[in-house]
């Protein structure tokens, strides 16, 4: 089984360096399910691209504290900051930022409405809840921020020509693609029109549009939510409506940005069943939507430093050493062999899972990144990850 697996379906190798060096690559989106190392991958790619001459900004969503510190990000201030400690001899530069979703939303409100109106929206309890805790806001705001970074690119304050985006730690990788559109379509949807219609069209006229059902619906909503909450919702929706002139349009625009030629998606997965299944869903979705997929990163594969010694042989030897009642060095050697057997088995299982993905999705370039012996939270270890990503 081992032999057939090794020879039959080798996926093409993902060439990360070529992707990063290509001047037409303007946005790289790292996506995948939670806990697979998206943020680390994004940061490592950022360093590698910057040190090979690109002017890069990395947008992280929810980095582990020590990873953030390694990039010099001590606070969540929603503004790209230059990262020091980067080798800039090739002419590149690196900025990094952490997304503050509430502040991003506030900024959108302030930028697109008159001063009095903005205050009114910011103070609305419904707005406050949506902007700080709605599942999907983070994805929407990540896209919003991406749009802003793209729009400002190339100015002296925003010197970047490559944006690397980490995606929010969603349940599913698909949330990143779905949430903005969902938010957009609902805010433009039938129900919202229903809520806003009476105000816009002046009471009864609005009702006529929808017929009798409206009364039932509004009265039911009032009964369930309480009248005050419903009126908060209406205020909020009306305010947003006049401000955005179509939330959906905005979501569509950001979505379009993602399907442009300059964008590449990198799907990150851990060599585990669940993470690879998520990766499959995501890859299928990208294909269905015509989104540009660069390839799959299989992260943190077990490392084997002594290839050529099979696990079964190792275990058999370990057993005979243990039975021999030999010196302490025999016990140690047995331990070393058991450890080796363990490592090889784990690595084989992980490789099997990765191969299964490639069988289902032939032709998708893949790179395998071995696990580091330690956690990644300084520039040096990020460079090491980056080198593995580049296959060197």
């Amino acid at each position: 089984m081992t032999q057939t697996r090794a020879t039959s379906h080798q996926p093409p190798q993902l060439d990360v360096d070529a992707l990063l060096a290509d001047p037409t690559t303007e946005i790289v989106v790292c996506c995948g399910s939670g806990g697979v190392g998206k943020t680390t991958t994004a940061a490592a790619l950022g360093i590698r691209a910057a040190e090979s001459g690109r002017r890069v900004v990395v947008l992280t969503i929810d980095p582990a504290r020590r990873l953030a510190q390694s990039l010099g990000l001590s606070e969540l201030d929603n503004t790209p900051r230059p990262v020091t400690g980067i080798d800039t001899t090739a002419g590149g530069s690196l900025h990094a930022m952490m997304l503050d979703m509430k502040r991003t939303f506030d900024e959108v409100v302030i930028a697109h409405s008159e001063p009095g109106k903005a205050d009114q929206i910011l103070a609305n309890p419904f707005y406050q809840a949506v902007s700080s805790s709605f599942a999907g806001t983070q994805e929407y705001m990540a896209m919003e921020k991406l749009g802003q970074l793209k729009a400002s690119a190339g100015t002296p304050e925003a010197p970047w020509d490559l944006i690397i985006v980490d995606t929010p730690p969603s349940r599913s990788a698909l949330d990143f693609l779905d949430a903005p559109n969902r938010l957009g379509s609902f805010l433009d949807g039938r129900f919202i029109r229903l809520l806003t219609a009476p105000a816009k069209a002046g009471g009864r006229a609005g009702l006529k549009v929808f017929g009798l059902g409206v009364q039932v619906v509004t009265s039911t909503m009032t009964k369930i939510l309480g009248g005050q909450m419903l009126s908060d919702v209406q205020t909020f929706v009306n305010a947003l409506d006049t401000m955005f002139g179509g939330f959906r349009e905005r979501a569509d625009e950001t979505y379009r940005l993602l399907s442009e030629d300059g964008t590449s998606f990198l799907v990150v997965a851990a060599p585990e069943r669940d993470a690879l299944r998520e990766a499959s869903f995501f890859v299928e979705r990208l294909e269905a939507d015509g989104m540009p997929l660069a390839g799959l990163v299989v992260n943190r594969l077990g490392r084997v430093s002594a290839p050529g010694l099979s696990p079964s042989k190792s275990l058999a030897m370990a057993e005979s050493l243990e039975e021999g009642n030999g010196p302490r060095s025999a016990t140690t050697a047995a331990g070393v062999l058991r450890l080796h057997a363990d490592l090889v088995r784990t690595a084989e299982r992980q490789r099997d899972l990765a191969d299964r993905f490639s069988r289902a999705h032939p032709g998708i370039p893949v790179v395998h990144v071995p696990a580091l012996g330690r956690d990644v939270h300084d520039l040096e270890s990020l460079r090491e990850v980056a080198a593995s990503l580049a296959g060197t």
Partner: protein
Amino acid sequence: MTNDWARARLHVVTGKGGTGKTTVASALALALASRPGRVLLSEVEGRQGISQTFDVPPLGTDETRILRLGSGGEVIGLSVEPKAALLEYLQLFYKLGRAGRLLEKFGAIDFATTIAPGVRDVLLIGKIYEANRRRRDGRHKGDGPLAYDALVLDAPPTGRIGRFLSVNSEVADLAKMGPIHSQAGAITQLLESDRTVVHLVTLLEEMPVQETLESIAELTAKGLHPGAIIVNMVRAPLLDDAALEQARAGRLHKPSLRTQLTEAGVTVTAALVDGLVAETRDHALRVDLERDQLALLEATGLPIVTLPALPQGVDSGSVHELAGLLVDQGMLP
């Protein structure tokens, strides 16, 4: 181990993604069922993790028996889905009928379950709250026997658990009166009482441990009760401390390793010995890191339960094994 969740009925299991939260929740449900008892095991993110763990058909929004133990204990599975929960809730409390369908038609249900802040989470927990109160006769009042002896919730990950469990108090603030307000209040009461305990699953790695510690602080600050820390996928040390010490310093004695390997019948090359020494050194460093992380967890003062790594991955058989280990380590109330 002694535990202080003797009165707990609702066991919420959280953990960073990839730590084996679903496996642990499944094993805990099985352990609780073995007493014997009737246990509801629910997931709220539609991942179908439970059905995969037990190798049964995908779970739906109807409570379905996953397995029955020889002792008479049962595990019932449920995948809670907000839309279904909302329609059921509306039917139960408002007897809506036609209006319910209209709400659906107008997109109000979609609105409530996806856009309205927190409502989705309120509905998900609300369904658990309902199952917790339900009597065997299907009613929610009276003093008949309860439908479930215990409930296990495969909850959202540590990054979202605090918000998820406190969403009711947020909503109670937002909807200042009305039925949603009082429902949210009642749920908060259950979650903050000693009938509810939150267990945290982690690996002995830096990031999951960090999140676990942050999560414990957050839960405690919100008046919720952290229960056990379940350290998952623990590997037994393969070398004694003296050997680890040598390995860490790169001083593992190569000649004697070479001798032993040769004696055991291996064709020994320098590359093989170097490779094995490198592997052992990585292992020693990993063990160090794990010990540091364990010390951090121990400093919380919470009970710690360990579960072994399963080299072949998790299947329905190994869940039984893990359940036994949870019982042995005093996880049951």
